[in-house]
């Protein structure tokens, strides 16, 4: 059976733990009803992403991955929430509950199915990566990517949708630090700034929508007439 054939070192296990908690915080993002809670889970998710990058940078010592971890730790848990708070008005955070197309238990079950699917689809690839940490990071990254896309589809509020997008990015990042650890540091910096700018643009857009029509419930923007909107 899986483990136990060779004694896993504690760093590998800690990385696996960071992966498990990363996935768990993604589930938290799917399951919470409040914008604030969704944001907190995103911050947690980013912290686990950074800690996984840090741990992967420790085992064969690579300053590159540690730098990636530090960039992530500054960018996602600190800068992005701050920027969102500044651009989107506080009213968005004051709303208690987010409307959602599916109810929470069903969306959790769908999320569970997506996760199983991610593990299932990556298992043929993982046969070639035996022993490396891609075994942990690839399926969890793919699962987070799918769950982020799912959040984006199901949520009807602007900020959680943005967080779904960012969680997709986190998922891709989580897989990539294990598969392609030697990406140029310049690229990582560009990605970090790209994400910041995306947050900024969507934040400003949300603010504009909010000022215009008094709500950020973008799900009801699909309908033209106001009478038939709900």
């Amino acid at each position: 059976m899986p483990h136990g054939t060779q004694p896993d070192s504690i760093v590998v296990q800690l990385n696996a733990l960071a992966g498990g908690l990363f996935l768990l915080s993604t589930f938290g993002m799917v399951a919470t009803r409040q914008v604030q809670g969704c944001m907190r889970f995103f911050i947690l998710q980013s912290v686990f992403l950074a800690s996984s990058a840090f741990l992967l940078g420790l085992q064969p010592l690579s300053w590159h991955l540690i730098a990636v971890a530090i960039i992530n730790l500054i960018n996602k848990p600190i800068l992005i929430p701050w920027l969102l708070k500044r651009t989107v008005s506080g009213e968005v955070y004051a709303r208690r509950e987010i409307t959602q197309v599916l109810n929470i238990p069903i969306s959790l079950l769908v999320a569970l199915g997506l996760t199983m699917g991610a593990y299932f689809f990556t298992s043929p690839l993982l046969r070639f990566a035996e022993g490396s940490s891609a075994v942990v990071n690839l399926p969890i990254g793919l699962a987070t990517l799918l769950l982020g896309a799912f959040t984006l589809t199901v949520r009807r509020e602007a900020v959680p949708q943005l967080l779904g997008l960012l969680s997709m990015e986190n998922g891709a990042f989580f897989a990539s630090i294990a598969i392609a650890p030697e990406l140029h540091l310049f690229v990582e910096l560009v990605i970090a700034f790209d994400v910041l700018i995306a947050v900024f643009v969507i934040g400003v857009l949300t603010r504009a929508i909010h000022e215009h029509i008094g709500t950020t419930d973008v799900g009801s923007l699909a309908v033209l007439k106001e009478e038939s909107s709900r």
Partner: protein
Amino acid sequence: MIARIAFNFAQVVVVMLFAPLLAGTVNRLKEMVQSERGPSVFQPYRDIWKLFHKDEIVSEQSSWIFRFTPFVVFVTPVFVTLLIPVLTSYPLFFAFMGDMLGGGFVLALGGFFATLAAVDTGNPYGPMGASRTRLVGFLAEPVFMIVFFTVSFVAGSTIPYIVQQHWVSPIANFFEPTHVLVMLAFFMLILAEGGRIPVDNPSGHFELAMIDESKGLEYSGPGAALMMWGGEMKFFVLICIFLNVLVTPWGLARDISVHELVLAIPLVLIKVLVFALTLVAVECSLAKLRLFRIGEFLGAAFVISVVAMTTWVFAI
């Protein structure tokens, strides 16, 4: 052989003695967090003592189930105590009589009889609480099953004494994601099964909002004492399974000697106290969920347990 039997019964005595203390401590700590004084930590002992010296009133309309239930509720946690590691890290005399699934079934038997007894009398609140308990119970059941299967699959055994060794035999096993996720799911399960705050308010006195408490409303005198003591013991046993099998299998007696066993008692109590502090922190920072949101709470626990299983099964 004699020592193993004696130690097994020592475990039962420890559970019987300290279960009310745990209940009292949790109540006192909760009151202290809410900046009140609260009753003494020994109040549950006084309650049990007082109730044993009172007369018992049994409704003429009730059947033998109503009279029989307090004994079942009291005895089932005692039986489970024989099967699980409370003080020792090596299997005791009765350890192989039943595995964790057996323990779960025995505990469920107590719950089953408590439900029947609640329906047995004419009290309108009893059946309501009983049906709600069943609602929580059947939502908690899949979580229990998945957690149990994952744990026994990982450890390759269903005997709690063997499972507890797996997590620490190389210390790296402790940090397995499966382990942490199973711990989290089981903690949520304890909150649901023990009737603690996000699911049920144990200190609430409003009958319409009760889930767990309203089943024992009809009991008086010694029957009420046994129901109360049994409920406290059940909670203590669940915590012992959680702490000694899943979370911290340290501080238990390692070989068959009396002074190791005596030393294990304060260590286990310290672990239980830490758990009580965590529980109080959770109970004081969350609000009770609406009845139909309990499904979401236990659904989240279910998802966590399935993720724990997935990360184990697919890890190569």
